[in-house]
């Protein structure tokens, strides 16, 4: 129900784990001597900017980026997707949380160029239709899990991911796995209640 095309299923067992690839490089054999591998692929477009392809909320976007740009600034300034917020710019507050290939990340500490070829979901993309709300969004309203609202998009993105990770088992577990998202207004009790309410709805949907 709450699924967007680029994200994994909500069932806890389906948490995406990277395919196990213990290939040549990971086996105990020594690394092949240098000179036989393909060179590092330069993507430079010539002016220091890089061409990057992102899928954002299901839509393919091609961007020309300063390599220094964070994914957060790229979403906000480049794509006018300002739901993800800047609260610290150092991965210390969680307000910038988005999903990258279905996993929650701090977009302020993600170089946008590293997201090349990957799928980004922001708060603007979690509801299937414009006039619908994701069950987590509705639960945040129902439990007044917010005050000023500034950290809220990050909290919701973290909360949706948390349920998919199978971490909504107990209050203690939810608190632990939501601790990367600061709420200065102190809406923590409401956020906990919202997640406990939304988790079964997400699983059942």
């Amino acid at each position: 129900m709450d699924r967007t095309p680029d994200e994994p299923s909500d069932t806890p067992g389906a948490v995406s784990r990277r395919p196990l690839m213990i290939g040549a490089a990971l086996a105990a054999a020594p690394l092949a001597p240098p000179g036989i591998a393909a060179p590092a692929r330069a993507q430079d477009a010539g002016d220091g900017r890089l061409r990057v392809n992102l899928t954002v909320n299901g839509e393919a976007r091609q961007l020309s980026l300063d390599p220094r740009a964070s994914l957060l600034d790229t979403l906000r300034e480049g794509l006018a997707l300002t739901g993800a917020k800047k609260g610290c710019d150092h991965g210390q507050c969680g307000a910038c949380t988005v999903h990258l290939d279905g996993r929650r990340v701090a977009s302020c500490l993600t170089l946008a160029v590293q997201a090349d070829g990957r799928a980004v979901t922001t708060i603007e993309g979690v509801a299937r239709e414009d006039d619908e709300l994701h069950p987590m969004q509705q639960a945040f309203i129902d439990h007044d899990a917010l005050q000023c609202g500034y950290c809220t998009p990050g909290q919701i993105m973290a909360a949706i991911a948390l349920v998919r990770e199978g971490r909504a088992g107990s209050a203690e577990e939810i608190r632990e796995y939501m601790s990367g998202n600061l709420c200065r207004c102190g809406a923590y009790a409401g956020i906990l209640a919202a997640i406990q309410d939304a988790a079964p709805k997400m699983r059942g949907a």
Partner: protein
Amino acid sequence: MQPFTYARAESEEAAIRAVSAGGRGTRFLAGGTTLYDLMKLGAETPERLVDISALPGLSGFETAGPRELVFGAGARMSDVAADPRLVRDYPVLSEALWKAASQQLRNMASLGGNLLQRTRCAYFRNGEPFACNKRVPGSGCAAREGIDRGHAVLGGSEACIATYPGDWAVALLALDAAVDVAGPNGARTIPLEALHREPGATPEVETTLARDEMILRVRVPATPLGRASTYHKIRDRESYAFALASAAVALRMEGEVVREARIALGGLATRPWRAREAERELAGRRLTPEAARAAGDAALRGARPGHHNAFRIELGARTVADALLIARQRA
């Protein structure tokens, strides 16, 4: 942030070659949670980044093998923390991972990169006006006479008392892990114990890795000690904080008696800190609360307080003691 060029490596070999050929300003980029953070602060100023975060050969891990556990350096902290075998058979490893940072950062950070996490010392991170030998060699150390509440009580030098902030390396150290690395001149294996350096007179050199050497994987010998283990971490808040003191312990018990103990300390030293003396003293003893406390004291023997951090010597000893008692219950 200083401009840099960015390239994505398509193989380990290509990455090493690119970093080696690129010279001093060229760096590997994995999850970026440390490097990009410090670049934003101006504490790191690379000119060329070689992205190794998408190398498929580095991202796997295998915890079912009879002889050893193998973790690709590119595996994400969150994935490894959640591995059911690790949770069951090596809680010290799983806990060290999930008690670090936040799930967002654990989804980004790689196991190899995490080993190389740099200190949280505010004088190091924040630049001007603070003297920092790590940041500007020879400039002095503002922490020694400063706010040193979080600074190291073990392994410090005149030049630097910055705490090694990581958790994973501490747990690995307790389990005698090793890292396989590769560089332009080939591959080698470094015992984890030999990976990190004490600051001495050159605190800017934090590890024994060459700049163009890359961690490929972490190997942990399979051991029954893993079951009776824990990573106990005491922080200023209940989550999402660096350790005031932490202890990675693992035990082999025979009834009430400790046959073998592994104890490593985090958050207290300039590098991941193995407490071998405490291990030796505990071996053969009944694990009473008093014995656990004695082991804690032994682990902190030789600790030197600064101005605001003396309490962490006591806290460290108690953390070790609690960790031992937690681990015993898992035996």
